[in-house]
């Protein structure tokens, strides 16, 4: 499992180069925008928010893959979580970093973004804590700090393991990262209690983060934004897209790093069921949102409603419904298609669909605000699309780099879960639940 840390393949360099190129182009596009102003994007009166904020919500949503799911699974002590947790937590950390960049990219004067930070200044003025953007600042920072620590702490024993196995510069680097970890019973116990506390603390934070992101919209008196359902709707959508991202990442890692013996069809099966559940939940929320608007028949909202149902945004809307609802339910409710390929196809659909969902929340409402005189249509520009492409490339780049530098599966957790037979002879009295989970026969579809 530590093989990728020790050896470097040509493929790794190829991925780094390709992704790095796109990221560099995105950085160039951002520099272009910084130099000339936000006008090089497609933003306009009245669509002052568009693609950047779409991506912001999308990436923050993706970030709910990891810490949230892994914290839930850790708390209920689900044995099958063990190979999945780190794969998931890494997505959280990187997706949050990328997502948190978008509000800054989107600013008219990004060099003043630090004014959101509450610090005493000579101007004697503080940030406005009534603004949802200030809440965002606090929520995302808390979630990011928590997630980074949640990811880093269980990595320490693995760093110690690499320290013992490696030679040369790797031994030095990983030795200092291991912080002098020896593996005393005290260290193990403290680590486990810390992880329990963090899991409990980070769950409400994760829920609050996407609720607050939804507040960015629902606090404004804009048709189809000003809705009480937005909090849970966004959280459900976030977990939905997060699981999809997790499935895609797991499948990619399984192929690239040959982790077939750790990431079993069972994991895809379980996550596929979760994805199916979230898909139904998502459908329920969309139905709620649309039905109340249609039934209420309030004329400000109906303009937005019809624009998405049969107007210029309708193709996006119906693609979204197919990707988020029809496709996952068709593929995942059937045990014969709920295999790895089926899960990955459904997940790809969900990622596309959820991106469209965010776009359809941000853009049409602004295009059709209360005064018909001010209606206008937004179209993105190459600068925006380039920056967006760069963030996807950045995700691949960071993920590949991480999988290269750190064992992507928590080795000690796997050992503790009795998945891997250490050189010792007796299995020992493991948790019967875990063994049952490991030995559970996989579904007929997954066996193929």
């Amino acid at each position: 499992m530590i093989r990728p840390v020790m050896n470097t393949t040509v493929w790794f360099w190829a991925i780094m180069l390709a992704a790095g190129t796109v990221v560099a182009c995105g950085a160039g596009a951002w520099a272009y925008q910084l130099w000339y102003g936000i006008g090089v994007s497609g933003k306009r009166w009245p669509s002052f928010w568009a693609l950047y904020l779409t991506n912001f919500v999308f990436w923050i949503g993706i970030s709910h893959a990891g810490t949230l799911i892994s914290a839930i699974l850790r708390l209920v002590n689900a044995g099958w979580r063990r190979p999945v947790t780190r794969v998931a937590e890494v997505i959280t950390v990187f997706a949050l970093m990328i997502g948190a960049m978008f509000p800054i990219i989107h600013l008219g004067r990004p060099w003043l973004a630090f004014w959101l930070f509450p610090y005493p200044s000579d101007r004697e003025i503080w940030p406005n804590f009534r603004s949802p953007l200030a809440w965002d600042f606090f929520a995302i920072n808390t979630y990011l700090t928590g997630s980074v620590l949640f990811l880093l702490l269980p990595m320490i024993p693995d760093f110690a393991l690499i320290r013992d196995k490696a030679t040369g510069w790797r031994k030095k680097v990983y030795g200092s990262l291991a912080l002098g970890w020896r593996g005393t019973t005290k260290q193990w116990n403290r680590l486990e209690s810390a992880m329990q506390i963090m899991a409990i603390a980070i769950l409400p934070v994760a829920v609050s983060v996407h609720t607050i992101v939804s507040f960015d919209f629902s606090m404004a008196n804009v048709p189809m934004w000003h809705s009480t359902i937005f909090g849970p709707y966004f959280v459900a959508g976030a977990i939905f897209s997060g699981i999809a991202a997790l499935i895609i990442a797991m499948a990619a890692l399984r192929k690239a790093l040959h982790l077939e013996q750790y990431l079993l069809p069972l994991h895809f099966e379980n996550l596929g069921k979760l994805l199916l559940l979230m898909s139904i939940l998502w459908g329920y929320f969309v139905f709620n949102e649309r039905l109340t608007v249609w039934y209420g028949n309030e004329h400000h909202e109906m303009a937005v409603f019809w624009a998405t149902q049969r107007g210029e945004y309708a193709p996006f809307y119906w693609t979204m419904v197919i990707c988020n609802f029809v496709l996952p339910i068709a593929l995942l409710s059937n045990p014969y298609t709920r295999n790895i390929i089926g899960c990955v196809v459904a997940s790809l659909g969900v990622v596309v669909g959820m991106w469209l969902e965010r776009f359809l929340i941000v853009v049409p409402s602004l295009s059709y605000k209360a005064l018909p005189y001010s209606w206008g249509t937004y179209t993105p520009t190459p600068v925006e699309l380039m920056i967006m492409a760069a963030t996807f490339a950045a995700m691949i780049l960071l993920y590949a780099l991480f999988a290269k530098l750190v064992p992507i599966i928590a080795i000690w957790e796997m050992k503790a879960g009795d998945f891997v037979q250490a050189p010792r002879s007796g299995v020992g009295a493991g948790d019967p639940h875990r063994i049952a989970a490991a030995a559970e026969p996989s579904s007929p579809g997954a066996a193929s």
Partner: protein
Amino acid sequence: MPVSSQTALRARRSALRAGGLLAAAVLLTVTAACELASPGQPKWNDASAGRSRWGTDPVFTPARASFGQALREFMSSHPTEVAQPFDFSHQIHLGKGVLCTDCHTAVEQGPRAGIPGVNTCMICHSQIATERPLIQQMTKMAEEGRDFSWNRVYAYYPESHVRFEHAPHIRAQVECSTCHGNQQEQTVARRAVNMDMGFCVSCHKEKQASNDCLTCHY
């Protein structure tokens, strides 16, 4: 060297080469796409040529002249000593009992204190100290109809959008030295007080003057 590692080396080289080509291609495409697809946007060469979109030359814009200028504004760094074209001495004039308002005449009426021109000087200096070389130099300027081009000592960067009015402060009996330092010790004016926003705000709070942002920023 074993064969397998040579193959690996070759593969790595070709991967690097392919990546380089890919990078160049993407960069070119993006540049071209940005230029072609958004005709309404400023072009790369717009700013360097200093031409406006009407084709007229030159153009006025609030953009900073250079990156260094923008950085200086960002750090709100101001020079304390400003070179002036003429060695005027506040010290001598105030020492002889001249009042600030004798020369800065507008200070009690309007927003600006007014920086006196050569004709104001000549009111006195047509008679006083005419033998001094500096005064003679100035007299010559006045006869030729030339004037001083003083450099600003106390200024805000345009981006601070500050509007300061002298008259209300004089009416509220704020001493000139509060903001300008003791001019009896200065020859040409120096930036004696660093007038950041905290300086203004704390005084306004103390004197219970309005701390509404629109009092100064509009």
